[in-house]
C-alpha cells in the first residue's frame, strides 16, 4: 500500500490534524503520527487510510485515479482573461483617512481616462479571447465618470455573450443619473460601510451630513435593487475597532447578511500610518473574537450572519473548486484571468500592485492597454504565486486550502522570499484555518448551527469530521 504524503499540525495537546495534498483530512493522535513518521503503520492505520482515500495499491487503480482527480480539482485553473478591473478616474469626492489608493482630489486635472485611453480600453477588451466578461469599476470614485462607465458597459453588452458589472463606489452620489445607471440586472453595487453613522463618519466622511447622505443612499439602493445586488464591507482600524454588535446590527438593518472584515491595507495614503509590530497578533485576536461573537449571536437570534472570508476559507477546506475569490487560490498566476487597467492605461496584476506603483514603492505594471501585456514581466511573479513546493508550505497541513500573495509580501517586506511563517499572509491564514478546523471538530451545537449555514448544509454529518484512533 502507498500512502499519499500527509502533513500535520497540532490543534491542541492531544489532537493532530492531518491533510493530504488533495485536501482530504482527518484528526488523529500523537501515537499515529509517530507510527506514520517511523513507517510503522498498524493494520488498523492502513485500513483507515485506504478506506479514506489517503492511499492506493498501484498506480492507475481507482484509488490512485480518484486522488489524482481530487488533487487536480484543488489546483486553480485560470484559462483566459475574463475579469477586468477598470479605473476610469483616480479622483474622489471623499478623503478617507485610510484610503488605500492614493486618490486625487475631486477637482484635480489629469486623473481621468482620456478619450484615447477609453478607445484603447475598448480595443483591449475587444481583443480578449472570451465570451464572458466581468468588469469591476474601481477608483477614485468611478461614479464621477459615469459617462465612461456607460460607454464601457454599452460596448461590453454587444461584444460579449455575458457581461456583468460591479461598481465599487462610496455611494455619496445617488441621483437620477446614477439610479438610472444601476437600474439594470447586470450591474451591481459594492460599497464601504464601517458601522453606525457615527463610526462611518469618524472613519470615512468626517462630515456627519455626508455620512447621513450615504446611509440614505445605501438604503435607497437596497430598496430599489435588493440586497442581492448590493454588497458592503467595513475596513477595520485596530486602533479604533467597531463594537461587534453595532457593526452587525447596522448590516442587518440594511438586510445585509454577509460582512467581509478587512484590515487597513498599508498601501496608498494608509502607508502614512505605520503598522505596529504586533498588528498581526492584534488582527488575529480581533478576527477570532468576532467569529466567536457571530456564532453566539447567530444561535441566540436564529438569524445567520456570516463573515465572508471565514465562510470562504471554510468552503475551501470542505470542497475543491472554491477559486472564485482571487485573493485566496493556488496557483494564483498573475495576469491570467484578471488584471487591472489604471486611470493612465497601465496594466497591473492586481489592485494592490497598482497601489504600490502609485506610491512609488515599486513599479509592478505589466504593460498598457495600447501595447498589451508584458508577459515577461508578469512571469517574474509566477514562482511566488504557487505554494505547493514552497519550503514552508510543503510541510503545512493547510497548503491545499491556502494560497499565496507575492504582491502583499512586496508591499510589506520589499521582497517575496521571506520564510512563509514570517509573513502577514501566512500568519493570518494559519489563524483562520486553525479556527476553521477547531469548529469543524466541535460538538457544540452553537458552533454547528453557524457552520452548517456558512457551509450551505442542512446537517453536519460525522463524515465531515473524520477521526482515526
Amino acid at each position, binding site marked *: 500500500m*502507498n*500512502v*499519499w*504524503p*500527509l*502533513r*500535520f499540525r497540532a490543534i491542541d495537546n492531544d489532537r493532530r490534524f492531518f491533510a493530504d*495534498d488533495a485536501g482530504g483530512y482527518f484528526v488523529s493522535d500523537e501515537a499515529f*503520527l509517530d507510527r*506514520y*513518521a*517511523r*513507517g510503522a503503520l498498524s493494520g488498523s492505520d492502513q485500513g483507515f487510510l485506504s478506506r479514506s482515500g489517503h492511499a492506493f495499491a498501484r*498506480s492507475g487503480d481507482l484509488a*490512485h485515479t480518484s*486522488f*489524482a482527480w481530487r*488533487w*487536480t480539482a484543488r489546483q486553480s485553473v485560470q484559462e483566459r482573461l475574463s475579469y477586468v478591473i477598470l479605473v476610469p478616474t483616480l479622483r474622489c469626492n471623499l478623503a478617507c483617512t485610510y484610503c488605500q489608493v492614493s486618490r486625487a482630489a475631486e477637482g484635480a486635472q489629469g486623473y481621468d481616462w482620456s478619450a484615447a485611453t477609453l478607445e484603447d480600453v475598448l480595443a483591449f477588451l475587444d481583443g480578449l479571447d472570451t465570451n464572458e466578461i466581468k468588469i469591476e469599476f474601481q477608483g477614485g470614485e468611478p461614479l464621477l465618470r459615469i459617462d465612461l462607465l456607460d460607454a464601457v458597459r454599452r460596448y461590453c453588452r454587444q461584444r460579449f455573450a455575458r457581461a456583468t458589472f460591479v461598481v465599487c463606489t462610496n455611494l455619496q452620489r445617488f441621483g437620477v443619473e446614477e439610479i438610472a445607471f444601476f437600474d439594470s440586472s447586470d450591474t451591481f453595487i459594492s460599497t464601504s460601510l464601517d458601522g453606525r453613522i457615527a463610526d462611518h463618519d469618524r472613519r470615512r466622511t468626517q462630515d456627519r451630513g455626508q455620512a447621513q447622505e450615504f446611509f440614505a443612499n445605501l438604503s435607497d439602493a437596497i430598496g430599489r435593487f435588493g440586497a442581492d445586488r448590493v454588497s458592503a464591507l467595513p475596513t477595520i482600524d485596530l486602533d479604533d475597532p467597531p463594537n461587534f454588535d453595532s457593526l452587525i446590527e447596522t448590516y442587518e438593518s440594511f438586510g445585509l447578511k454577509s460582512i467581509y472584515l478587512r484590515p487597513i491595507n498599508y498601501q496608498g495614503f494608509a502607508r502614512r500610518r505605520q503598522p505596529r509590530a504586533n498588528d498581526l497578533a492584534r488582527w488575529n485576536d480581533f478576527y477570532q473574537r468576532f467569529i466567536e461573537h457571530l456564532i453566539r449571536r447567530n444561535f441566540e437570534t436564529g438569524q445567520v450572519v456570516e463573515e465572508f472570508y471565514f465562510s470562504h476559507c471554510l468552503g475551501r477546506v470542505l470542497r475543491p473548486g472554491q477559486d472564485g475569490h482571487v485573493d485566496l487560490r493556488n496557483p494564483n498566476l498573475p495576469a491570467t484571468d484578471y488584471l487591472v487597467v489604471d486611470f493612465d492605461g497601465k496594466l497591473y496584476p492586481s489592485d494592490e500592485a497598482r497601489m504600490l506603483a502609485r506610491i512609488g514603492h515599486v513599479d509592478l505594471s505589466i504593460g498598457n492597454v495600447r501595447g498589451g501585456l508584458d508577459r515577461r514581466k508578469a512571469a517574474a511573479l509566477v514562482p511566488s504565486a504557487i505554494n505547493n513546493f514552497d*519550503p*514552508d508550505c*510543503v*510541510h503545512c497541513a493547510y497548503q491545499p486550502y491556502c494560497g499565496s500573495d507575492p504582491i502583499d509580501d512586496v508591499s510589506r517586506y520589499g521582497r517575496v522570499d521571506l*520564510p512563509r*511563517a514570517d509573513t502577514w499572509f501566512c500568519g493570518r491564514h494559519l489563524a483562520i484555518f486553525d479556527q476553521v478546523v477547531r469548529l469543524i471538530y466541535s460538538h457544540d451545537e452553537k458552533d454547528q448551527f453557524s457552520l452548517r449555514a456558512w457551509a450551505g448544509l442542512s446537517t453536519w454529518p460525522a463524515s465531515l469530521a473524520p477521526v482515526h484512533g
Partner: protein
Amino acid sequence: MILPVAELFEPYVASALVRLGYLYPGARFVPVANGIEITADGADHGVLAREVQYALYREKIYAETLPLRQSLIDAVTHR
C-alpha cells in the same frame, strides 16, 4: 537539553536544522553525537523539543514521499 535522535531520522537532521534555524532564530540547534542539543534562553524546552521532533518527521516524510508527488504530477500532466 539534548534530544535523542533515532537512527532512522539521522539522514534528515541537516535539513531539519536548516529549517529550525530560521523558524526559531532565538534558539540554537546543534547536532551532537547522540542527538540534537537545544539551547534557548527563556524558551519552553519541551515545546522546542517537540518542534525539533516534528521537523525531523516532516523532512523524512517529505523526502520519502517526493517520488509520489512527482509521479502524481506526471500522471495529471500526461508526462
